[in-house]
């Protein structure tokens, strides 16, 4: 029994390595280069600080990865992040206990996600348009709610989320880990996850196979909503304030990390581990360029080039596969 368990773990590890060989190699090269060219990169302090920097992007990228896998998209994650941050901080400032405020905010994120999900399943509007619209609505709502001003929050318990440590590990790091394990388990170990791949791979075939397409689609949007709210809490806790303008453009970072990590823009393909690697590549890249005193403007350009390269390599691999098939 134990033996079969081990061999299946080794097998899935092999599969993971094979599937993500390219980006793993890229990650390795980046780490290697930065360790050679800087003497501060490969230090515990720096690595822990990178972990904190990428945490918000990572959590958003997991959510984005999931909607991409079912063949949809969620452009509203950045706005949900801002609105959730404002909701949470306002509640704490109004005297609601921190724990309760956090829980209510997560539930609020779930509601935002549910709205996207229900619109996506019960109308025929493309998810790109739906979430483009809700992105505007949620953004407007956060400005309306705060009168366009940032709200400061020095609640100790609250700021512990973003700045605290559990032993040597930042709490933000633990949140990443929890999201990674959650996404990974959902995708690989459950019927729900197989259903997700089926919907993204071929929606019609999924309907014929008796998969509850509407239920799964709505639930995935809810998960993404919760993760966006989580990211909002993390960000405002780290900077001791919630700003209605925060998180603008974060959806693009999340898409970039997911696609870099091997999630197909057409749905049906992608892994949680891949998304994590995608986030790390972008994070290390930014960190390394910072240390090499390259301006942040260049970092944005490098990120763009990375995405092009990653997706190009991916299409090359797919084309070769299809070509072999045509001749066979």
């Amino acid at each position: 029994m134990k033996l079969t368990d081990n061999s299946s773990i080794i097998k899935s590890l092999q599969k993971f390595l094979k599937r993500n060989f390219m980006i793993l190699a890229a990650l390795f090269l980046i780490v290697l280069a930065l360790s050679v060219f800087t003497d501060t990169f490969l230090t515990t302090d720096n690595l822990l600080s990178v972990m904190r920097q990428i945490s918000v992007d990572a959590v958003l990228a997991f959510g984005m990865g999931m909607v991409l896998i079912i063949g949809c998209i969620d452009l509203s994650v950045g706005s949900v992040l801002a609105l959730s941050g404002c909701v949470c901080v306002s509640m704490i400032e109004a005297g609601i206990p921190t724990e309760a405020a956090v829980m209510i905010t997560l539930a609020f994120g779930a509601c935002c996600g549910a709205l996207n999900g229900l619109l996506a399943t019960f109308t025929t509007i493309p998810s790109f348009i739906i979430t483009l619209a809700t992105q505007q609505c949620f953004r407007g709502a956060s400005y309306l709610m705060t009168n366009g001003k940032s709200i400061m929050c020095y609640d100790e318990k609250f700021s512990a989320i973003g700045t605290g440590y559990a032993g040597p590990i930042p709490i933000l790091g633990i949140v990443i880990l929890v999201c990674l394990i959650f996404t990974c388990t959902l995708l690989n170990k459950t019927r729900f996850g197989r259903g997700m791949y089926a919907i993204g791979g071929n929606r019609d075939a999924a309907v014929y196979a008796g998969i509850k397409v509407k239920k799964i689609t709505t639930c995935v949007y809810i998960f993404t909503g919760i993760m966006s709210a989580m990211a909002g809490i993390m960000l405002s806790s780290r900077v001791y304030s919630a700003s209605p303008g925060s998180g603008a453009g974060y959806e693009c970072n999340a898409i970039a990390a997911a696609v870099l990590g091997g999630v197909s823009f057409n749905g049906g393909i992608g892994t949680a581990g891949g998304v994590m690697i995608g986030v790390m590549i972008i994070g290390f890249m930014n960190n390394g360029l910072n240390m090499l005193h390259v301006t942040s403007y260049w970092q944005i350009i490098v990120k763009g080039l990375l995405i092009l390269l990653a997706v190009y390599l991916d299409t090359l691999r797919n084309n070769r596969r299809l070509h072999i098939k045509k001749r066979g």
Partner: protein
Amino acid sequence: MNEDYILQMKGINKSFGGVSVLHDVSFEMRAGEVRALAGENGAGKSTLMKILGGIYDCDSGEVLIGGERLSTGSVQDSSSHGVSIIHQEIVLVQDMTVGENIFLGREFKTKSGFVDFRRIYKESREILGRIGLGQLKPDTIVRELSLSQQQMVEIAKALSTNSRILVMDEPTSSLTDREVEFLFEQIRALSKKGVSIIYISHKMDEINQIADSVTIMRDGRHILTRPIQEISYEEIIQNMVGHKIEDYYPDYKVKPGKEVLKVEHMTTEKVEDISFTLREGEILGFTGLMGAGRTEMVNGLFGLDPVLSGEIYLDGIKSTIHSPGEAIKRKISLVPEDRKEKGLFLQNTIAFNMTITVMEEFIKGISVDYKKEQQILNEYIHQLDIKMADTEQLAVELSGGNQQKVVISKWLASAPRILILDEPTRGVDVGAKSDIYHLICKIAEKGVAVILISSELPEVMNMSSRIGVMCEGRLVKFFEPDKEEVTQEQIMHYATGGYEHETYRQ
């Protein structure tokens, strides 16, 4: 002697990355000849045609058109020598007009450099008139046309370049019988005008109807070319497959068991007043023209379309089925019509595809029993003889026949008592077709009640114990081939609505 031939391809060799795809192939044809090109998938038909069209270059050999040597590997040179290829899929821009499509990329210009629409439409009208489509207005949006009309626009487009050699790659795969008849008329007219036509098809009766001669290819080699009168249906198949197929259709005789399904006056939005019964071990065939409502009828049974009125009895118990999930729970399986659109997850593994309907048997909460999954896989791979590297291979990499086997096994895994197969052999090689027929009988022998939907009449006539004929959303006639002599003409009579005239006469 050389002037006899409009097209000569001599000693063509082609390999891709060391794999020889065409081996010393020669191909000749005369002006005005209609030549069927037959062969299984991967026999090299399309590669040969792509060399003719200039899409691929050949490694050695030469192509002569009207005695002139073609510089191979150039689409421009091929088309200026009068070669046009109509591909299997329609490649028209759906939101442009007919005229715009015909002259797409070759638009006429006015003196001031803008597109000369007046001339485009004038010339389009002329071309359409030439092929008997004078009634079609060149300023119609393509999307509004029927598939056969679109196919004709493709032909018009090909002819607008004054082609002498027209290649048609399975042009009828999406056409109804009437549309096919119309297409054939056009082909005959073209051949009278001296256009040579190369007609690629899997359908034997079409080859018989339209071709003057047939060329058979297998494994990248030219096997034979013969006038169509001098070769039999069996010989063609035998040469395509390379060995004799014994018992192309299995001899199936099982006494039907007890009744599992009874449908009474079922009406959905698409079909009306459907009544029939189905017994264990029985193969019940349904046929009809495209759009007659065969697929829509089983969609009602499978919970995809809501049943508006009428009753469905399973094992004598009145049942309602609201979703495919419920149908699967009640042991009904549906192998849908279009395997790539509705049956397969092409980007996923074979294992994923085969077990997607029975996930609850090996995934509980967050624990996956891989051993059990493997057991399920082994059982069906063995039973269906699926040819593949391993179960982690992607479905997209399999041949059509093997893909169809994967789809069927996915549904067998859910241990159905009623198995509905909608066009199970469409786009499948001849050899694999026979495999699927034998498989269906093996399933029925085990007591599964099978509904077989097919527009290929020989298929339903040889496989089923009863044949239901549908026309315009209604079930108009049942034939019993076991008890009476049934001809294709009789079935077509009912499928085309002939019964209406009959009742009228009475």
